[in-house]
């Protein structure tokens, strides 16, 4: 009998192995990339937080909006949820969530802890029925937005393995009472704060890599000069006040240098300055206009705009000045405002097409393949990459006023931010440290 059972076991194992080792008859490669169907359940309220319904709704709303904006998730309509199960793995009814086509699940609970709020979050992979995240976050009672963004970051990381950008900030120029000033805001368009005061025209903000200061160009002394201001506000510090242009300043990824456009010699050329503003190197010396520098993530190269070929195109030059600049774009006749992806693989830029409309394009630096991000939606300009390289922010006139748009790289998910007014020159800040 034992022998019989052993033979049966061996045979079944062999059959199992035979199936698992069956001949491979085809390769299924690629496929339509689609957002990951995610269910974000309503926030549960702890015993001592029964009066925090509004805060709970706000929290869940921020998490849903952030994850939806990322383009990586398809947020399922909560109206279809049967959300009566528990929070821990043993208490979750995975079949209920599978029935609404969810592949991921997020649950949160809000409690009060003294003067603070405690938010617990759980996330599950429905297919494998495994918990992928369990965390508690404490925030000040008035700071529920911060908790929502932090939870969105944690959930994003749990499902993608990459850091989220929902706690990062944007810097942008807005018109205020006839003047233009630099503002900062959350990436969902909320929390708008004016940074610069006075000076009339304040333009072209760009974040330092440490996130503590912002470079910008100001006409406060009736000349376009380069300044630096702390994110907490205060008086700006002059970096370069040379005759002519001192525009488009960008701090290098290591924080030690600044690439800028100067015209002190009579023509717009690219220079490398120290953080104090001393000229270290002149990078270009051509008859055309050279401007709008952007650093590669390793700081070894700079992409910029030059009209040396007869019309504005993108070029790349060694940041140490070695060798000649190499032309990057060969299509279109008006390419400008380049932004180098933190991943190093792509450069986004603005281009004017044959219909005289400005749109956002992305060039793959490995294949030179050009991808169009926007089309038929007004003028779209001045892209800036998120610090994880997955998203872009740029300006758009699709709704008449110049608004901000957050988009994924292929343009399939675009979210117009609710911030009011005319916006220009957005700059996406670094990861929160």
């Amino acid at each position: 009998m034992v022998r019989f059972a052993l033979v049966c076991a061996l045979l079944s194992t062999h059959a199992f192995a035979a199936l698992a080792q069956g001949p491979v008859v085809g390769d299924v490669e690629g496929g339509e990339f689609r957002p990951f169907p995610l269910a974000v359940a309503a926030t549960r309220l702890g015993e001592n937080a029964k009066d925090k319904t509004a805060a709970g709704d706000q929290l869940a709303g921020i998490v849903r909006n952030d994850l939806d904006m990322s383009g990586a998730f398809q947020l399922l309509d909560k109206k279809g949820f049967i959300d009566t199960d528990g929070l821990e793995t043993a208490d979750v009814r995975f079949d209920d969530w599978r029935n609404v086509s969810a592949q991921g699940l997020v649950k949160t609970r809000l409690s009060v802890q003294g003067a603070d709020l405690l938010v617990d979050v759980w996330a599950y992979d429905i297919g494998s029925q495994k918990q992928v995240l369990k965390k508690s976050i404490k925030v000040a009672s008035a700071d529920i937005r911060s908790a929502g963004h932090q939870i969105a970051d944690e959930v994003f990381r749990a499902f993608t393995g990459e850091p989220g950008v929902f706690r990062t900030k944007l810097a942008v120029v807005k018109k205020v009472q006839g003047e233009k000033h630099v503002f900062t805001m959350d990436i969902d368009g909320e929390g708008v704060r004016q940074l610069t005061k006075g000076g009339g025209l304040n333009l072209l903000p760009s974040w330092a890599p440490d996130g503590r200061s912002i470079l910008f160009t100001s006409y406060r002394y009736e000349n376009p000069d380069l300044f630096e201001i702390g994110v907490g506000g205060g008086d700006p510090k002059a970096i370069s006040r040379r005759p002519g242009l001192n525009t488009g300043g960008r701090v290098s990824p290591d924080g030690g240098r600044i690439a800028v456009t100067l015209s002190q010699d009579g023509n717009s050329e690219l220079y490398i300055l120290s953080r104090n503003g001393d000229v270290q190197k002149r990078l270009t010396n051509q008859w055309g206009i050279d401007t709008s520098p952007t650093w590669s993530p390793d700081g070894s190269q700079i992409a910029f705009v030059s009209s040396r070929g007869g019309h504005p195109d993108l070029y790349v030059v060694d940041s140490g000045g070695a060798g000649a600049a190499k032309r990057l774009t060969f299509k279109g006749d008006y390419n400008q405002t380049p932004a180098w992806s933190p991943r190093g693989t792509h450069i986004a830029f603005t281009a004017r097409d044959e219909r005289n409309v400005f749109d956002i394009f992305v060039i793959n630096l490995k294949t030179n393949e050009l991808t169009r991000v926007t089309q038929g939606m007004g003028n779209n300009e001045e892209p800036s990459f998120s610090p994880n390289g997955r998203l872009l922010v740029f300006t758009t006139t699709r709704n008449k006023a110049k608004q901000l748009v957050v988009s994924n790289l292929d343009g399939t998910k675009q979210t117009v931010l609710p911030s009011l007014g005319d916006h220009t020159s957005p700059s996406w800040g670094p990861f929160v440290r």
Partner: protein
Amino acid sequence: MNEPSATTPPQSNLPSSTTSLSNSSSMSMSNLSLPPQTRTARVDTQSRLLKIALITSVVVHAGLFAGWLLFPSTTKAAVDLDEAVIKTRLVKLGKPRDEKLLPRMPTSPPPPAADKKAPPVLDPTVPQTPDTKPTPQTPDKPSAADILNKFKSDAERPKDINDLIKDRIGEQTDEGKEDGDADGTALDGEINASYFARVTSRIQKAMEVSSVLSDDERVRLKARLCLKIDEEGGLSDLEVTSSGSAVFDSDVLSAARRASPVPAPPPPTRKQAGDGVCFNFCPTTCR
């Protein structure tokens, strides 16, 4: 020579088409007891009958063979291999876009313009008779053998002749090497490859990859899905060898479920499909 037995039954002189060969020896034995003239006549009659039987048999067999050659089989193949996997139509190629222009996103073509011709006005005085449909004429279809026989040798036949025959008359050829497998034909390998290519294409169309995969995972991940395909194309015993990403593994299983049922396997492929086959899945390329 043995003497005939007293119990030997009397022999009938009437010709019988059912004369059995097994009786021939007993008959020839019984002939020996008859007078020589009668015996000769009987032998002649028996020879004539034998000849008639042989001729009749040959004619009947020849007729059956001719009928098999001339009239096509009425049984329908389990799998309609003529069914197009992708329906296409020829459209006029537009003017190519200038290479120096920036790329544009594809947009849907406008719907075709409605026919603006006015409908014909019917004269009420003329009685309207319903149009009579012409009876469809079905021309005689050639057989596979007829088509193959038009080529004097194998070397003259186009390489895709079997596909052409299947395409035109829906008939499989039995062409094969003389020393080939008695249970198979030269087409089996092609039929298997063609079938699994169709199944792969079906699953490919249903494949959706979650956007949450990182760039590294999109290049690196590879899963293997093994399954069984029954005679109706239903999938069972799905088993994934994990890629390392639960999300991608889930995408693989979902694709297989969406693709089911796949095209039913043709007879030569049913055993292999039923025993189990595997597919590699990769978010970008499997190479």
